[in-house]
């Protein structure tokens, strides 16, 4: 009860301070911060209304990070998202629908380095190929990773420890490396 109030207050303060100091961040009302939220980089970050930021259960060292690595990068998160120690890195765009839930999971829309020997900036990536689109009511399990260019449909559940590198259709449960559809909801 008290922690909820403190989280609400912390979220309101974060919203106000980031609204004053940074132009590229846009946060909806009703943000609750139970744990640290770190937003870095020159890109745009848009968070919808009523989001909750938490840490991983039993791991006090982890917190939510939203990083943008270029001017044109955008991270868009819909309403009522619950992020528990989720980590996102965007170079192009990550767009997430409403009621998103991630637990200790990672999303990245770039490989950060090319396959060349010099390990420079990857040249073959562009926005059409690498943008990550995630639908409404998606849940990501602990220690799972969504890689570049993946589209997840609505009502998808990803099991803990899975690595998603192909598109996943609507209303299903996927697990494994690479993630495959195990069960379809009806």
């Amino acid at each position: 009860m008290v922690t909820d109030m403190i989280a609400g207050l912390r979220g309101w303060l974060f919203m106000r301070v980031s609204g004053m100091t940074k132009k590229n961040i846009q946060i909806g009302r009703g943000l609750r911060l139970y744990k640290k939220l770190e937003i870095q980089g020159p890109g745009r970050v848009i968070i919808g209304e009523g989001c909750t930021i938490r840490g991983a259960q039993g791991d006090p060292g982890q917190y939510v990070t939203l990083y943008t690595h270029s001017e044109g990068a955008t991270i868009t998160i819909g309403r009522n998202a619950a992020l528990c120690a989720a980590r996102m890195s965007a170079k192009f765009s990550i767009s997430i629908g409403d009621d998103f839930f991630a637990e200790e999971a990672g999303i990245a829309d770039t490989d950060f380095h090319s396959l060349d020997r010099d390990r420079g900036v990857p040249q073959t990536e562009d926005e059409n190929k690498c943008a990550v689109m995630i639908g409404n009511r998606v849940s990501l399990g602990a220690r799972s990773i969504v890689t570049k260019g993946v589209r997840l449909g609505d009502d998808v559940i990803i099991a803990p420890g899975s690595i998603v590198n192909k598109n996943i259709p609507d209303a299903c449960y996927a697990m494994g490396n690479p993630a495959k559809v195990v069960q379809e909801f009806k």
Partner: protein
Amino acid sequence: MNTERLRNAGAMLAKAARYAVQHPLGFIVKIAALLRGCWYAVYFFALSRGSVTIKLPLLAYDTLSITGPGRVTIGRNCSIYKNTFSGLRIVTLSPEAGVSIGKNCALGGITIRCRRNVEIGEKSITAYSLVQDALFAEPGNVRNKFDVTDLVSAGTVYIGSNVWLGGQAIILDQTVIQKDSVVSWGAVCRKQEVGEYSLAFGNPIMKPYSITQIMKFQR
């Protein structure tokens, strides 16, 4: 019977003295770990009002954190080693949750999140891994349009004695791992049974191989 016990104690003391002379620094670290284990036992017993029981001796080389309202028992002669990240973390997410760890376990880096029941047998070795007896630690946040209560509900995890859990392995609900088995690096188990003395690998795990067969193949 009494004399035999006395003789055993004498042998142990002699061994400890020899160790102290041969490796004085190691001896000091070990004594510090023992004292730390004693402190953890008293601290968690007092903090949890009796729901956490840690049997001594416990060698705590790294941190132990137990949170949540459920029952936790750790058998005697366990040790918590340093691993990639901090030591042993146990979270019970509901009052009916129960975590029991057998005696002589070597625990390091493992995270246990429990909503119903997690059991780890004696003499088990763990690396940086995750044991979670449900798909999500906080299922209230899953807002699927379809009915997924079956998928999200908690099951039980049973890990037998003398099991070796590799690094980054994930053990999920309704998993049974029989004794003497090995779970390989990065394996993910859910709703599967790994037989006695076999090797489980892959994500999700493939059909476990019997280790006796693998040993034959190696020769």
